[in-house]
């Protein structure tokens, strides 16, 4: 099986709020630090990926992070413009506003049409071979199937025409497990893990795209070994000597909180392991106590991913 870091196109997805962007940024930074030319693409245009590299607003034209990846933000209108220019030789001078509006309108009814502009652009970049790797900060769980399955949906719905003729090579790129992989991000909690399990199943059932890995983000380190936990319980219950002072409340609360969360998280990770096929590696990422955003955090994530994926 091709390792995660050896693929050309990685879609990073997961339930909202689990840290997709952080993981995508970490992966892109890691690949770039290995000397590869990397394109990191944010699909939902919230600007979080640019923030992970402390860039200002980033558009359709990639911006280089010194020593890091190139960062771009997906824009379906710009993608349509590029598509028309490349494939139809339609003179697209200035605004394509009305055309884009019309396209939007068709896209509202035709599943896959809008999505194909996103997926198509990414596949195009693989084919154009300007980057060694493309990391996509993709849409969340509920939408990713629509994106990955867009070429197939177009294939089924549209019988002739240029778009139809384009879907074959896109499908070839997407379904080649040595080229493309999906990284499903979760946190060790009930809903994120459940959604990750369901998504891994759905991707395998409904698309022919390979799931490269499940990343469990924000896992807490084990605080105490089994015997130490018993000792901690005894001390926390008795609070002997000066430890009974109120100022120590926070310390005992924190340890109790961390232990309870860790125990619960371990159950969810076990459930994930039991439900995801053995061929899909599960990668654990630690909880970041200090800065959780910006380049420093991205660097920390890249470093720990390097350790996990080595």
């Amino acid at each position, binding site marked *: 099986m091709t390792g995660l870091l050896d693929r050309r196109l990685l879609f990073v997805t997961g339930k909202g709020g689990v840290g997709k962007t952080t993981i995508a940024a970490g992966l892109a930074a890691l690949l770039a630090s290995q000397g590869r030319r990397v394109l990191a693409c944010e699909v939902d245009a919230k600007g979080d990926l640019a923030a992970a590299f402390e860039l200002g607003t980033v558009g359709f034209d990639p911006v280089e992070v010194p020593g890091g990846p190139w960062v771009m933000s997906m824009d379906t209108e710009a993608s349509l413009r590029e598509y028309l220019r490349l494939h139809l030789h339609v003179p697209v001078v200035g605004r394509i506003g009305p055309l884009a509006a019309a396209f939007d309108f068709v896209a509202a009814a*035709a599943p896959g049409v809008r999505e194909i502009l996103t997926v198509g652009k990414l596949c195009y970049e693989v084919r154009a071979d300007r980057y060694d790797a493309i990391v996509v900060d993709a849409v969340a769980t509920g939408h990713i199937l*629509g994106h990955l399955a867009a070429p197939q949906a177009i294939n089924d*719905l549209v019988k002739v025409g240029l778009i139809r003729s384009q879907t074959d090579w896109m499908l070839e790129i997407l379904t080649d497990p040595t080229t493309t992989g999906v990284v499903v991000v979760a946190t060790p909690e009930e809903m994120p893990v459940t959604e990750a399990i369901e998504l891994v199943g759905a991707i395998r059932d409904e698309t022919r795209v390979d799931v490269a890995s499940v990343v469990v983000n924000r896992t807490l380190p084990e605080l105490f070994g089994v015997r130490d936990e018993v000792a901690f319980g005894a001390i926390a219950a008795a609070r002997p000597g000066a430890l009974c002072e109120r100022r120590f409340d926070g310390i005992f609360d924190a340890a109790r909180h961390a232990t309870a969360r860790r125990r619960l998280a371990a159950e969810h990770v076990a459930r994930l392991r039991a439900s995801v096929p053995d061929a899909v590696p599960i990668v654990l990422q630690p909880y970041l106590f200090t800065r959780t955003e910006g380049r420093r955090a991205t660097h920390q994530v890249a470093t720990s991913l390097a350790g996990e994926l080595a």
Partner: protein
Amino acid sequence: MTAPASIRRLVETEEILLCCGPGGVGKTTIAASTAMLAATTTPGRVLVLTIDPARRLADALGLEGIGNEVVRIDDATLVAAGASPRGELHCAMLDTKRSWDDLIERHAPDAATAQRILANPLYQNITGRFVQSHDYIAMERLHELHGTGEWDLIVVDTPPTRNALDFLDAPARMEEFFSSRLLRWLIAPARGGILGLAARPFTQIADRILGTQFLEDITEFFLSLHSMYGGFVERARAVARLLSDERTSFVVVATPEPSPLREAEFFLTELGRRQYEVGAVVLNRALPASLAEPATEAAADALAGDMAAFAKASATELGLDEATCERVLRTAASSGRAWSVVARREAAARERVARDARLVVTVPSLDGEVGDLEGILTLAGVLGSPA
């Protein structure tokens, strides 16, 4: 003097509470707990409408496999969970596909048109596969349920959308869609046959991209939908009115972490701009308040600085091994320091949000996850306690 703002007061005075916020913050749980609070503190009939509940929660609420039906959680079940119901607690889940089908059947001019739309592959794709269609239908269903007059309070768990505010704009977008020039423009020539359509520049390009057959399918679909224009627009307007009605209030739910908070703040701004009423901000899964106290870090230092003495005292008093005690206390001190950093960050964020909101309620993270009625009842208690 008016009573101070509280969730307790909101469930007494409002008819609709919309819980909204970014994904993954526990919106469904907060919605269910708010409804539970209402059913245990007011004598009314309360309904919680959830969109996509976690399976365990759906089980707990008796929602598994019930589709669009409304089910009541009977008093015996509530009492068994430790609640003392004053009113009735009902639950419903949104079945997007079925709600759309109902809507089409209601608004189509005749049965044949309804059948034609329901059978259209584009329609099936839109309603079945695409989450965006949750947006409008959730608000439409709310309107329908509110219109029956059967409930004193409806608590809505809003749909998980890519842009969390999409559902607010859904009625307006739906109206815009049906009354747009583009739609008329696309449809007009189709009435005279597809050939007229092919003469236009857009369709020439679209034809090269998509093919004529596909364009015909799309046009036919829009043409059928267009026959429902009047009913749709009227409903969309009524739904929009309901959202800004003074009996409706929004509860913005977030967790005290940077990204969800940024979205929540964006929410507050947007709701304000649209002149919707924000009843409360709920910061879910917050760390215990003791962690944020400045004393905690100092205490961690004190503990670390005099570790041997503390370990010795503990070992002697509890009959434990001294080395073990030292190891445990050292770990506890460093974990306390790490978590107090997180807790202080949360506290600062809470203050920032409090500047923009009338009421901020902090809900501490419970030891377990909320997946049963007992858990929901516990959370209801937290939501109902005075700030």
